[in-house]
């Protein structure tokens, strides 16, 4: 083998770089996703299992219905009428009032970054650390 030493060294370095994420995170546990369910509201628009797997499709359907078809009322599986609105229904003060304790839990765990919040305003939450200086 010509230049065997160089090739083997290269392969070893290459493998080490490729597997870097595995051994770097070895023995480290990622905090488990722990979404907190609302205390006031006990029932979502659809059953829990459905919401767990298909909330994104439901929201997609909601946005098309509201924006494009002007149909904004949704009859939930329990027969209750809901206003199809992320900000005013899902994230209302009586329901998922804290994005960080609900949405972010699983989304961060699975490294999903939905672009809902680029435009939609998440509910106000107290930020314990940050103290903003008042701007004039």
């Amino acid at each position, binding site marked *: 083998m010509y230049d065997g030493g160089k090739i083997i060294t290269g392969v070893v370095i290459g493998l080490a770089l490729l597997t870097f994420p595995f051994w770097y995170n070895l023995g480290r546990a990622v905090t488990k996703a722990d979404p907190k369910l609302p205390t006031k509201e006990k029932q979502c628009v659809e059953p829990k*299992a459905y919401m767990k*797997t*298909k909330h994104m*499709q*439901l929201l*997609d*359907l*909601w*946005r*098309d*219905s*509201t*924006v*494009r*078809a*002007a*149909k*904004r*009322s*949704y*009859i939930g599986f329990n027969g209750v009428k809901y*206003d*199809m609105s992320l*900000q*005013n229904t899902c994230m209302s003060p009586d329901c998922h009032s804290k994005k960080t304790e609900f949405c972010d839990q699983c989304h961060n765990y699975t490294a999903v970054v939905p672009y809902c919040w*680029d*435009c*939609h*305003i998440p*509910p*106000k939450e107290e930020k314990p650390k940050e103290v903003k200086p008042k701007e004039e």
Partner: protein
Amino acid sequence: MGVNRRKFMKIAGVSVLGLGAVPAQVLAEDGLGFTISETLLHFFHKPAGTVAREALTAKRWGMAVNVRLLDDEMANACMEVCHRIHNVPKIDNPKHEVKWIWPDEFKHAFTSQEHEHIEEGLKKLPFLLMCNHCVNAPCCRVCPTQATFKRESDGIVLMDMHRCIGCRFCMAACPYGSRSFNWVDPRKYLKEEDENPEYPTRMKGVVEKCNFCAERLAKGKIPACVEICQEMAKKKGTEPPLVFGDVDDPDSELRQLLRSSYTLRRKPELGTSPNVFYVV
């Protein structure tokens, strides 16, 4: 001869269908994937909801602006209330500014009808300008993603911000300058405490404009600018300068006003057929 070509093709076709059906069935039973009907539902984007009972509906929404009754105070109040409830940022740089409704002079609003000896009074009146919600909206024709579209139910020209890719074709197409592009992140110019938590903001790189308060109509309320003008006019004891109604309904307040007063529309020669009328 056992199987001829024709028969083979038939069997092959049926077998392929069968192969597809099995995994779909398994997925549906597991509760992981979608049932076939759900997939179809989603594929065709069938609207999932209904129109609320309290919603205001019309065949073709329109507005009349009686400029003789409008003063600067009212015009600015309209602009202020609209921009506040829709989270429109106030950006001082004119190259970056975003506006849904704004007052301007006659010579800018009616470029083709202006001449040097125009009535003196008219020159000073504030003309409240906004999206005209045209019958033949050029913005809707050019939009490559159908982000801006004419709502079939009531003729409002709306924007689906989820689809806007920021190409600005609609801005080039709109002859009225009714559209604004978000050159900068609008949230930088909105104070958190001033945000209306019931309405979204926009993000950098999308176009926005007046939506005839579609979100308020759905809740049975008239557009915010019309409402504030009615309140202010009541205090002053005058007729309301803005009238909102159904252009297709001959008995609507709007049509009665159009019947009794001479009205102008902006750039009618272009054939866009605006739904905003100006009583002069």
